């Protein structure tokens, strides 16, 4: 499809590099020589999707098989979508520029709830019916994975198969089954029944959901031999697992443009609000020698000058010092910098600071999450005020003059006192800076407080808790602003209208499918972008379908209620979550996995931290 016409169209929109392809390390194969064509769709713009590590891993993995050609697709921005509709250009993959109808399998990664209308839009732009029921054997198979797959019910009417957990093995098993069935001429219905036998594969069409009069779920019943519960998959040994040797290097500027090294999966801390900490259990580390080797290989194949060490809590990685030593052996002389996001505030030592100090000094970011010890105990964020102040002091003494702190608002049992506590804590940090005899001369301190709106998520102890209303959120934000009495503290907070929508979908059920469809048809897409989000369209879609949003987000759920995701098993037992919620209401904490096992259930995989010597 390359000709002057296409060129002309690309040059008429913003950032044409989003749609041109041809990047270094992008994979081109002969389509007549492969059995399976896979279109990996990231339901947001190129710049966001190209920063996503999961896509890079799966893209490389699938393409490492000679019978699969995996290509990338991103959501076209609204200016290019207009051009596509006007010129009758269906959505195409970047490598071949072929329309998606020519692919066997189309896979979406669901990283956040606000991308759902983009999923429908990308299907529509491909001339593929977005409802599963409308797609016969002659349309590609539509699959999806990612963190939101832990409660995929709001998308149940649109996706054929959801992958639960980590995709490196189960995705290939599914593709292999598809290839087998394709060769034998087996139709989609029969294929889906066979697919449901693979562990980690959830086929929503094989489950029927019944509701009680009060709209809560009565039952989720499997059919055609589908399993009663679907259990997530994990990769047991990260050292032997596949990891890319090359990354596609974008031409245009993307959000995170660097070598990304995953150092471990899961988290030992068990903070009660954090979904990632629960759904990625158990903790499995990659050995530092392997990480070092992989990072070197990636830098050599991409030319990147920065390596980011990624995990949920990087300073909890057992061999962090060894890893940094190995890396600094060669990164320094090649002028490659290291980035360590996700550092924990209670084990940020002077030694660690010294190691990362001579790397390009960006700011330091820590998550305190709550302003008072009481509330920190409720959410099981086991850090004390003393630890927070000591770490900031260490950072200031090391030459840092700006610190960013993450907090949340709307946490269970939160009171105004806790909100004011945030401002007071920030003030104490400012005071710590000025009390230092060794502070940098002539420079003042910058404390940025970023406050997110807490949204209760499935598979966390707070999945039973109510989310506070948008009005209440605004009142608390105002209270926080009024409690700050110094120019050295800056408060950033989020728009509460998108938070409310995220809350509805996070704990939503299948009745929301129609709402998403209606909102999409009324023009909603790119809902996570403030310039595109139209609250009124959503409100109308809910109203037209007789749905009270407060039912999903603002009410307390009883421990006996059948939750829309109870038939999905992420290894952490519901009893454990209930117990944690009860402990939370008593302000009681739970120690981390390395200190003491709390029997959450993740040890069923017989891997990882559960079996480490304590």
């Amino acid at each position, binding site marked *: 499809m390359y000709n*002057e*016409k296409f*060129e*002309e169209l*690309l*040059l008429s929109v913003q950032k*044409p*590099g989003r749609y*041109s392809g*041809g990047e*270094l390390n992008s994979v081109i194969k002969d389509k007549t020589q492969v059995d399976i064509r896979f279109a990996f769709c990231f339901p947001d713009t190129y710049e966001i999707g190209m920063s996503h590590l999961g896509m890079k891993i799966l893209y490389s993995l699938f393409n490492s098989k000679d019978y699969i050609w995996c290509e990338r697709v991103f959501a076209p921005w609204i200016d290019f979508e207009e051009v596509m509709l006007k010129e009758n250009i269906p959505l195409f993959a970047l490598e071949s520029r072929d329309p998606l109808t020519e692919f066997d399998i189309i896979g979406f990664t669901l990283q956040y709830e606000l991308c759902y209308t983009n999923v429908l839009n990308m299907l529509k732009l491909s001339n593929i019916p977005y409802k599963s029921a409308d797609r016969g054997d002659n349309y590609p198979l539509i699959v999806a994975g990612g963190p939101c797959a832990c409660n995929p019910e709001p998308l149940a009417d649109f996706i054929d198969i959801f992958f639960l957990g980590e995709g490196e093995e189960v995705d290939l098993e599914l593709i292999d089954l598809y290839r087998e069935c394709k060769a034998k001429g087996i139709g989609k219905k029969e294929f889906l029944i066979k697919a449901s036998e693979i562990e980690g594969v959830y086929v929503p069409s094989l489950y029927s959901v019944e509701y009680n009069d009060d709209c809560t779920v009565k039952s989720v019943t499997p059919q055609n031999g589908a399993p009663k519960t679907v259990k997530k998959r994990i990769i047991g040994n990260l050292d032997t697992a596949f990891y890319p040797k090359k990354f596609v*290097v974008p*031409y*245009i*500027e993307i959000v995170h443009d660097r070598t990304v090294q995953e150092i471990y999966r899961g988290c030992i801390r068990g903070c009660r609000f954090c979904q990632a900490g629960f759904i990625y259990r158990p903790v499995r580390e990659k050995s530092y020698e392997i990480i070092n080797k992989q990072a070197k290989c990636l830098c*050599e*194949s*991409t*030319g*990147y*000058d920065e390596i980011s060490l990624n995990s949920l809590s990087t300073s909890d990685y057992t061999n962090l010092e060894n890893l940094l030593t190995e890396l600094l052996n060669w990164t320094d002389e*090649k*002028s490659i910098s290291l980035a360590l996001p996700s550092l924990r505030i209670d084990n940020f030592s002077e030694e660690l600071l010294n190691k990362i100090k001579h790397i*390009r000094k960006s700011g330091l970011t820590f998550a305190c999450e709550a302003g008072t010890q009481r509330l920190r105990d409720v959410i099981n964020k086991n850090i004390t005020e003393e630890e927070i102040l000591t770490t900031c002091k260490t950072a200031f003494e090391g030459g840092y003059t700006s610190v960013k702190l993450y907090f949340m608002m709307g946490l269970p049992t939160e009171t105004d006192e806790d909100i004011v506590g945030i401002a007071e804590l920030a003030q104490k940090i400012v005071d710590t800076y000025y009390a230092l005899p060794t502070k940098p001369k002539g420079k003042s301190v910058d404390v940025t407080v970023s406050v997110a709106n807490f949204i209760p998520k499935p598979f966390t102890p707070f999945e039973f808790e109510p989310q506070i209303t948008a009005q209440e959120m605004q009142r608390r934000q105002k209270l926080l602003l009024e409690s700050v009495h110094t120019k050295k503290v800056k408060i950033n907070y989020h728009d509460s209208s998108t938070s409310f929508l995220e809350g509805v979908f996070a704990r939503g059920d299948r009745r929301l499918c129609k709402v998403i469809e209606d909102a999409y048809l009324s023009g909603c897409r790119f809902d996570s972008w403030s310039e595109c989000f139209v609250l009124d369209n959503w409100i109308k879609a809910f109203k037209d379908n007789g749905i009270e949003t407060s039912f999903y987000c603002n009410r307390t759920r009883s421990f006996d209620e059948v939750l829309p995701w109870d038939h999905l098993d992420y290894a952490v037992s519901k009893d454990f979550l209930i117990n944690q919620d009860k402990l939370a209401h008593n302000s009681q904490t739970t120690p981390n996995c390395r200190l003491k096992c709390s029997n959450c259930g993740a040890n069923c995989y017989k891997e990882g931290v559960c079996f480490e010597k304590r």
Partner: protein
Amino acid sequence: MKFVSHLDMNRFMNRMLRLSGIPIWYTEGFNPHPYITFALPLPLGFESDYEILDFKCTNDNLSFDEIKDKLTAVMPEYIVINSVYSPQMKAGDIAYSSLIVTFFGNNSELLNELKNFMSANEIIIEKKTKRGTVKQINVAEKIKDYQINAKNKGQVLVSIVLPSGSEENINPQSVFELFKNKYPDCPYFNIKRTGIFDKEMNLFV
């Protein structure tokens, strides 16, 4: 590559030089970065046969040929390293660039319109100055040279030499956008740079 902006091009060359293993001089100071510059930035959407990139190699033992080979080994096929040499002129010496504007359409009407347009005494384009005010420039007197050719492949080519560089810069895109405004049936055109010159029309090296 024509969809890559100048800033992105800089980043791209940075990475390519890293991959090639050629040691480059970094700037000193708080935030060291590789010192590479394009002598004359190319606007987004243009192709080019003649681009100049300056950098300092810290290994004096590497010959020009070796550098050329190392770079060629990592570059994609649509970027060709023509030659590697010591700079003879300074970036400030750049005065003109030659370009070819290719119109995808060929008929006598287009040819006539172009001839009339290019031969006019006045071709006024508007340019925003650094202060934000709008200046009017008569491009007719600035065009150093031009030629209109009709090719049988349904294309009309206009070769043109325009002022470029730090002293004065006329963007052919503005000139031919003006043409498009005057002649609405104008077909799609693209622009390719073919050479960079100094005041005396010597090839810039």
